[in-house]
């Protein structure tokens, strides 16, 4: 019951934060001058009618009321004005979501086992040369921006070695093997950062756990080092690692703007960048809402899952 209250409280707070951010965003966007209408008279009429419906010449707060009603009741985020003119923003968004999710999902499936394994390895070999090698590699991978090694991947694997296509295949057959093959450079580029982050985190947690007194007890009662590590150390180390992975799963929806742009993945990221460059405010609003929500949701899921996994934190929440 305590836990339930805590979760509800966190979710309500999150929704409040989300609402405030969206309100501010809406007001700021509405303060901007309207974009020019397209040349085509039919489209022009559609967009004008739509603007009329959304009350574009009414006070901003009234507009916000209409906007909220449309979104909440009809899930209607408006239509594209300067890009995808006349088409529903929601439809385009739904079209762009699958490649983003897929690429990030692959990348996560690839990097989580490697990251954790490397972290465990480094922690067990602490202060030996293996640990130094892993730690240095992690240091480099964490520091370097992902687009720099995306270039490296593209140059070495796609150009010099000619292993993969430069950009993702066109078409929408997301699950075909050739599509997966063409996604590999992007998946690799996305994975380096996740692997490095996870390795560092796992290593830090596990080294701390390994020095705990109950590890000494476990050895004293006769477990071998391997048994003690697997049964006691790893389990405890997983307490903070698991929420992090769950958070990662949420944020894969957000994807990576840069990587998607570099490898020409027709996902949410490039859509957002395009919306910014041609100033399509309806797309901008919807995608801003999307990214804000993903960010907030990842944080809250991490916090809550901590509570579920580790009872000590749940107790602490009462204060």
């Amino acid at each position, binding site marked *: 019951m305590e836990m339930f209250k805590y979760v509800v409280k966190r979710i309500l707070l999150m929704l409040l*934060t*989300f609402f405030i951010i969206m309100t501010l965003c809406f007001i700021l966007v509405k303060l901007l001058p309207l974009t020019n209408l397209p040349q085509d008279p039919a489209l022009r009429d559609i967009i004008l009618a739509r603007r009329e419906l959304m009350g574009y010449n009414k006070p901003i707060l009234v507009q916000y009321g209409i906007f909220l009603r449309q979104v909440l009741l009809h899930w209607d985020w408006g239509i594209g004005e300067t890009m995808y003119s006349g088409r529903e923003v929601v439809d385009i968004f739904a079209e762009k979501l699958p490649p983003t999710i897929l690429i990030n999902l692959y990348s996560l499936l690839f990097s989580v086992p490697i990251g954790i394994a490397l972290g465990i390895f480094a922690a067990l070999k602490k202060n030996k040369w293996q640990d130094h090698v892993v730690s240095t590699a992690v*240091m480099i991978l964490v*520091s370097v*921006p992902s687009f720099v090694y995306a*270039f490296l991947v593209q140059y070495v694997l796609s150009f010099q070695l000619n292993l993969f296509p430069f950009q993702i295949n066109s078409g929408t057959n997301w699950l075909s093997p050739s599509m997966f093959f063409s996604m590999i450079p992007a998946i690799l580029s996305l994975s380096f950062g996740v692997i490095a982050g996870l390795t560092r985190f796992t290593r830090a947690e596990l080294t701390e756990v390994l020095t705990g007194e109950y590890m000494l007890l476990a050895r004293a009662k006769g477990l071998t080092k391997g048994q003690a590590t697997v049964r006691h150390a790893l389990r405890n180390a997983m307490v903070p690692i698991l929420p992090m992975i769950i958070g990662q799963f949420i944020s894969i929806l957000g994807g990576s703007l840069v990587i998607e742009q570099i490898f020409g993945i027709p996902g949410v990221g490039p859509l957002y960048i395009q919306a910014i460059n041609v100033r399509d405010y309806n797309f*901008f609003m919807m995608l801003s809402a999307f990214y804000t929500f993903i960010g907030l949701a990842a944080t809250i899921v991490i916090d809550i899952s901590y509570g579920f996994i580790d009872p000590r934190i749940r107790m602490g929440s009462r204060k």
Partner: protein
Amino acid sequence: MTNKTEIGNIPKEKFEFAQREETLHDVKLDTKPIGYFRDAFNRFKRNKGSVVSAIIILFLLLYAIITPIFSPYSATFLDGYYSTVLPKISAKANGFWDGARREKIGESRYDYYTAMAQESGYNPLRKVYGTALSEDRQSTVYDVKLDSYYKVGCQFFDLKPDAYNALIEYQNKNNIQVIYPMTDASKRPSAFTNDANYWYRTSGTKGKADKDANGNFVNIYMRDASGGGAGDIDKYDSLRIDGDDGTYQYAVPNQTGYRVRVCYYKYFEYVNGFEPCFVFGTTGNGQDLFGALARGARFSFILAISVSLINMIIGAIFGAIEGYYGGALDLIMERFVEILSGVPFIILATLFQFHLANKVGVVPSLLFAFVLTGWIGTAGTVRTQFYRFKHQEYVLAARTLGAKDARLMFRHIFPNSLGTIITSSVLVIPGVIGTESMLSYLNIVNLEGSGTTSVGTLLSAGQGLMTTDPHVLLFPAIFLALLMICFNLFGNGLRDAFNPSLRGSGE
């Protein structure tokens, strides 16, 4: 036992008084006291990786500051003829970093370059590794090392009369042949009628050299019956190339002045006063990459350091008030922070660009965006430190002695969080540089027209040239990677250094 009796038996006269005249006082400590920063510095020095990265950062910083001042190429320098030339460490470099690259070229290109070498003396073919038959076994393919500076060869220029006369004067004074005889447009290969480098007779449209019986090039120079140069207006009275019998025509008058054919390498030297030599090569539009990268780096550094300083001040004040007063005020301020930190930075940056870029410029609006959320981290650490220290006895003592809140906060508690603040301020810098490069790479922040460039802009310009001229992408990428790695190492070193609990752990 025996000892004891012996001690008891020491005769009285053997005792003497110590310090009979002197007064007793504490002995001054022989060792110097080690202060907080001294201690931190000692710890920092032992961390080799951090010291090395600090030196590299200093080096990169100097590069960013000094290069734009001393670079021979100004910020607006653009040379369309020398676009994407390769890196060349010095004008006379040979062998390594020499502006040349191994390439495979066909027969007609081979002729083209040898003719170029024969005419001007600047040989674009640094080395010929060998020849092979082409795939269809019809022609020869040459494996050569091609100089990207010399291969530009000759170009046509339309000069105004005074510019033309100045060039002639330069030629006469320095005895350097810059102007070469004009060629007959009708005899140039039809596919390359505007190429100034075909001074020899060719056959076919592809520009295959049509040599004479001895295997020499046959020139197609324009001749002027009067033996003059630029028509009848004024006679060309300057250096002539070898083999000129005095009838070659060196300039063709047109509406604004003269059309001449110049060897571009020498012309560049004439215009700029030094030989062309781009240490990092040039970008796709002929910008000196060495200088452009330094300017981009300078911009990044200035932006990041100002963001870091402003963040430090705002964060320190906000965190201090939050942590010191606590209670309801803290709760409200925390909610505020929560909302602010929920906004993805990219949305913030975009909105600022939309609203402010036209009014205050691109760079200030980017700075505002960074400052708006950047201080949150610093405020958090300061707040934690305040919570830790505000109930300590020494604070109570100071309060009892009548110290005001502000004095307690900034004189007594705040210094405790100095170490963490410095560390987080340093770690802000790579974050800002990385984000700024990303935003300018994605063109969300468009620095064009603001008179500055950024590493991200250079990266996005270089990306399109990845397959043909990787150096345009390579140098900015290496720079960014190196900077980020060093700053993170340096920051981690600082964090350990400012952690007094690690005192003596490395000894």
